[in-house]
């Protein structure tokens, strides 16, 4: 590609090239691989723990009327069907592990480059700041999807190895075939990935505010924890629906028969709102930012 062409009007292919190089850089980092490794380990731990607990044939949490109430969602159904390990693993990682990993990647996106002194070289390339920011956001969202799928696939593998598979009972008590169950599991994984869009946008915005990658990651993860805590305070219930994490566990509604869409739709709306607000704020900040490093 000649320089004149690129300056005149960058072709869409060029954007793809930038995205591809970003993806490769991100997923080749040891840090990213370690994060994915931790995420893959969660379902293995849950699966083995449940297997040991129920190894003598007793059912999970059979010790009293509220006995099965503890632990992540769906945990008591894992022994019926290994597929439920996918839902349990996603329910266990969604409140903290997954968004923390996203926070690290998103927080690092701009601030990390600035910190390493590579941001100005990226901007020398005739891609433009808007395009670079979009590429960074697309990379973060690709990581959301990959991270969720890593958890789901790891859980499915462990579930298939340790527990029986077959027709499964939805939480409404009706039965669906294993194929439909797999379909729902995939849909749930997608919904979980989409649930992380809000954190990704927030992290990207924080990342444009500072030149320190560590500060951006810590701020994003700190905000995540703060919001999770505020979401538990009943006196604040009036603002709860506007927290990005409030409807996260609504993915479980996909396991009802018929599916209860109200909260799922609200979740998607909240994520879109966060993406729009913090995405545009990140853009406004980044366009005007002095690149000193």
């Amino acid at each position, binding site marked *: 590609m000649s320089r004149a062409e690129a300056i005149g009007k960058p072709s869409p292919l060029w954007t793809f090239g930038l995205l591809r190089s970003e993806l490769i850089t991100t997923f080749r980092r040891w840090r990213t691989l370690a994060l994915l490794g931790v995420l893959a380990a969660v379902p293995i731990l849950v699966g083995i723990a449940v297997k040991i607990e*129920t190894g003598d044939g007793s*059912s*999970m*949490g*059979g*010790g*009293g*009327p*509220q*006995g*099965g*109430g503890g632990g992540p*969602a*769906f945990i*008591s*159904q894992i*022994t*019926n*069907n290994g597929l439920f390990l996918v839902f349990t693993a996603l*329910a266990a990682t969604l409140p903290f592990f997954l968004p923390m990993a996203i926070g690290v990647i998103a927080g690092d996106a701009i601030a990390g480059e600035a910190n390493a002194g590579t941001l*100005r070289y990226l*901007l*020398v390339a005739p891609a*433009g*700041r808007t395009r670079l920011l979009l590429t960074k956001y697309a990379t973060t969202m690709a990581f959301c999807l990959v991270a969720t799928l890593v958890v789901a696939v790891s859980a499915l593998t462990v579930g298939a190895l340790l527990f*029986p598979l077959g027709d*499964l*009972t939805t*939480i*409404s*008590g*009706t*039965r669906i075939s294993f194929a439909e169950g797999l379909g729902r599991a995939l849909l749930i994984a997608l919904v979980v990935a989409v649930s992380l869009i809000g954190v990704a946008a927030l992290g990207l915005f924080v990342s444009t505010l500072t030149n320190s990658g560590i500060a951006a990651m810590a701020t994003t993860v700190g905000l995540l924890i703060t919001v999770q805590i505020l979401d538990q305070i009943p006196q604040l219930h009036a603002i709860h629906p506007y927290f990005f994490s409030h409807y996260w*566990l609504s993915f*479980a509604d996909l396991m*009802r*028969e018929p599916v*209860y869409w109200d909260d799922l739709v609200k979740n998607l709306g909240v994520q879109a*709102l966060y993406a*729009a*607000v*913090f995405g*545009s*704020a990140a*853009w*406004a900040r980044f*366009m*005007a*930012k*002095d*690149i000193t490093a």
Partner: protein
Amino acid sequence: MAPYASDDSTTAGDGDDLRAARRRKAARYVVPVTVVGVAAATIGLVPAIADSGDPDLPEITAQQLIEKIAQSDVQQLSGTFKITTDLGLPDLGGLESSLTSGAMGSGDGSSADPTAKLTELASGTHTLRVAADGPDRQKLSLLENAAEYSLIHNGKDIWGYDSKSNEVFHGTAEEARGEKGKGRTEEVPATPKDLTEEALKAVDDTTSVTVDGTAQVAGRDAYRLLIKPKQSGTTVGAITVAVDAKTGMPLKFTLTPSSGGAAVIDAGFTQVDFAKPAASTFDFTPPKGAKVTEEGELDGAASEHGAARSEDELRKEFEKEFGGPKSEGERGKAPEGGPEVIGEGWNSVAVFDTGGEGVPSGAEVGGDMGGFLDSLGDKVTGKFGSGTVFKTRLINALITDDGKVYVGAVDKAALVKAAESAK
């Protein structure tokens, strides 16, 4: 935009350029601010716009509307139902678990037992799903966080499935008729139709019933039936029932207290469909590995524990509220002696004689429940002796020190009067 544009402008040093650059910087933040503004406006305005106003329906008298309800014969429906109860009690969420664990002992009970579950409805907001196909097949599901409690009646089987603990409760319809008071509906009237029927039983010369315009409920046109007590002294302000104009099925039930404020009970469909639900809705086989409790096994578990009785009292409050005591729901756990009713209409006060044993006072019951009872208490004295008044926003109860209990949807003065007239 060139990568170094902003650097260039800041190093130019010219005052005008600097100010222009600042303006440009600030101008960009208009975008996120606009997004926030548009979002806020959308959240604020869309419900107002969507609320297209009350539907235009032909005039109808209260009598015709009540007949419409009586003739209503909806056999098949499925829908989502929201019930908000605000009796002015502290949140029963945590208390409920202490009640059930106290009542059931350790491990004897099942979290899938319907009576334990439905007590939860006494406080807070709950989303339920109902489906019905004729008299033999019904399903009621209580939607919880990432879990669901389903009560399924299919032919002669009654299944309760608690997905949170993966426990199953199984009973048969014949047994249920005799012992459980024909299933859930008589114990806790939960659908608008049940609630309305209960309310209409109380209609006589003490009550005014009018048609109060129309409303839109769950996307359907409905008439609003307004039921108001003519007497004073009752805590019931008004009852509004929205009745579907086509089928005559009550869709929404609201009970407001005479003291004003939010509705004590607000129960209505948020979505309803009168088509036949899929047959698979009512099929249930216990999942592999689930703990199944048969109905008979639970009878032994119903102890004479203080907390168990308190749970029963809660249920009784519900029954009291909607007209006459229905003792088949009490299942021998109730205090000795049937209730005697003082007064009429809305001011009816039921009297229970607990046989001198007294009510579980805070100290007796102990724990959470004890603190809860004490916090509600209010000491009174009168010609009848002395006692404690327990108040909620709807039901008040006077418990005298000699073990008599006066319960009614009336204010404190009326309770004391009833107690004095009984002496």
